């Protein structure tokens, strides 16, 4: 990066533009086949990205390229883009000039997502995806690390929020996200409140008269069932049969966007919407940011672990120490880790075999009780 500093765009921005371009072409093919990817890789002569660096730039450049490519491999990108990100990592790793090869930093926080991705690929019989991922593991291409990159408290020039290519983001569940339990709860509250207010204006006998009953009584249940219907439709549509395991699949269309398991998880979420009764008092105000997740999954064990994971890690900064940290800190334009993205993503992948639960499931449940009280 340092060696591109004199010019207008930073090295990582340029690499990102190149990756966006490559993955954009891959996205157009609507395929998740490695064969299709390598065709684009060759056509764009992407391996030339390593050509012409000075000897001492080889390693820093490899590090930069792998760091950028890694971002596509993890959420919130769509399944197909994540596949593209994986292939990109694989191709870059084996084309780089640094020796021994620069490793890919994989963050502990992303490991669960990677394993989930692998399971999805296995279930859908995407052998090439699984093979490429395991081959990278086998050749020890990863550093099992704290974060996907080295951090040195640096504020990068022109550093903005990690700009993501909008069309690469997983979006299949927007209606469900919009019509959340939180929204339904609030809506039914407002609704009943309005109803009561209206009722209080009129006498008992006037209650049957039409002017009081202008509001639609079943608005909330109807909205709910519409979303559920939409989801069922969506699920039916995406339930194309995965290919037979006869051979390495050649061509296919549209399947990469949302995997089976993901849609199933969404179904579980929807089910939790279905079973919830309305008209009862909503929970007392909690921080709005947290509430969506908390309410969506109330009463389920998943909710407890999820809460634990999704709980943003910023404590209220009241202590002097942290205030000093703030003033020492690089001013306000640094983007805080956006809890929103996390929340949406976590919703998509409620998973009964999440990393927190396979081994420490019980512990998590016990802990989260305590967490809730203090939080």
């Amino acid at each position: 990066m340092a060696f591109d500093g004199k010019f207008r765009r930073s090295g990582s921005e340029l690499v990102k533009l190149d990756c966006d371009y490559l993955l954009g072409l891959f996205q157009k093919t609507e395929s998740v086949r490695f064969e299709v990817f390598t065709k684009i890789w060759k056509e764009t002569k992407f391996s030339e990205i390593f050509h012409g660096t000075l000897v001492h730039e080889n390693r820093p450049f490899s590090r930069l390229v792998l760091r950028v490519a890694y971002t596509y491999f993890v959420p919130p990108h769509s399944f197909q883009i994540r596949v593209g990100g994986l292939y990109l990592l694989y191709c870059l790793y084996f084309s780089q000039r640094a020796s021994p090869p620069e490793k890919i930093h994989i963050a502990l926080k992303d490991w669960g997502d990677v394993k989930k991705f692998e399971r999805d690929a296995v279930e859908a019989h995407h052998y090439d995806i699984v093979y490429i991922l395991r081959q990278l593991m086998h050749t020890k291409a990863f550093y099992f690390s704290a974060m996907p990159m080295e951090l040195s408290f640096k504020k990068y020039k022109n550093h903005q929020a990690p700009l993501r290519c909008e069309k690469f983001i997983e979006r299949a569940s927007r209606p469900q996200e919009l019509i959340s339990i939180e929204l339904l709860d609030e809506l039914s509250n407002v609704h009943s409140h309005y109803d009561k207010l209206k009722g209080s204006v009129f006498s008992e006998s006037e209650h049957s008269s039409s002017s009081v009953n202008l509001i639609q009584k079943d608005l909330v249940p109807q909205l709910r069932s519409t979303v559920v219907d939409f989801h069922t439709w969506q699920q039916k549509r995406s339930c194309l049969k995965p290919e037979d395991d006869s051979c390495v699949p050649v061509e296919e269309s549209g399947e990469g966007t949302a995997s089976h398991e993901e849609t199933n998880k969404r179904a579980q979420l929807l089910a939790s919407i279905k079973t919830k009764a309305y008209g009862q008092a909503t929970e007392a105000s909690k921080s709005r940011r947290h509430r969506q997740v908390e309410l969506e999954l109330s009463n389920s064990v998943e909710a407890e672990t999820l809460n634990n994971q999704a709980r943003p890690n910023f404590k209220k900064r009241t202590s002097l120490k942290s205030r000093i940290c703030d003033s020492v800190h690089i001013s306000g334009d640094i983007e805080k880790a956006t809890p929103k993205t996390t929340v949406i993503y976590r919703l998509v992948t409620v998973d009964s075999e999440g990393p927190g639960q396979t081994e420490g499931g019980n512990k998590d449940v016990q802990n989260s009780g305590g967490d809730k009280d203090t939080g």
Partner: protein
Amino acid sequence: MAASRTTMENEDNIPEYEYVDVNTNVFHIGSFQSEWLKRLSPQEWSYQQQDETEFDANFAKDMQINAQTMDALKSVCSYDSLCCHPEEEKPDMETVPEDSILRTLLQRKKRQDYKASLKIHKNRHDLYAEELDRLTVVRKPDTVTDMLPEGEIILTINIYYPAVFDKFNYVRPHMTLLMTGSHTLAELRDAICCVSDLQVCGEFSNTPDVAPDFTSKDLYKSAFFFFEGIFYNDMRFPECQDISMTIIEWAKSHNFPPYSQAGMEDTRFSDLKVKVGFPYLYCHQGDCEHLVIITDVRLTHRDDCLDKKFYPLLIHKHRIATQKCAVCHIFIGRWFTKNDQFAPSDPCLFCEKCFRMLHYDSEGKKLGNFVAYPYVDRGAFN
């Protein structure tokens, strides 16, 4: 201390960003290590690489595919097929391709042309960087006991120049070290080289021969690291004082949150709770303060230097220009004089030879009324 550390098992020790791309939240390094080891199979963090045919056999079995499918898969996924050029024409990796559509390459071409127009082939920095890259060669130990254990933690630590330097460089670290989870903070301290440890205090114009025997490091042994509200003091020697006490008491009297103390030599990195990417403090010689940033924490890898003896491993060292003697302009300054009638300036810097030749007669008798202090150049560790 160990007991108080383990009571924090309630927290998850999975690092998340506190500020995106800047630093993480606080986590316990030892627990972070066990979280990784819990999730991985021993094969995954082992230094041994599985046999290729064994890998293929396992894969085929796992995916329930036959040998024919497996072969097809292997040929599709082979990375030998990735080369963008026909086999006969080997591409020139050294020059930037002319006709590329990649933005990175357009930029690199522009820069290469620009550099060529300057007619500078390689600057000193480039040359030095090459030298460093050679340093990262993998070293395997001769004996098993010197082998870094599999699944051990490796930390990358940046030490910055103290703020007292006039050309204080905030961005470029002075040195970058690799350390393991079982190293103590005292071992980090010993690996940090700072010129203020080498300074010799006092005026020695009458006895220039006895001067450089005692350095500040021998005289003032106290030092501390500060991580997450805890001062880790060096208490290895009887002369060591708890120099953090003044700060702690001052903080207490000013209603700051309470700070605590611990021993540098009793604290291993795997005992620490830290934020990766966050600036912490190393203080020695009373007021020589360095920022310390842990930039990466990860499991060891088979391509790491696996010989314990080489750790703490220096992987980067910033070179700074040395101050040359005012007379010969060749040798590094060793003496710093004031009120010096022989000097072109006041104060003035001399190398050993010029200093002796100008200021003493052939019997070693001092000429004139100057004062002289031993000088240690900050490039002394280059």
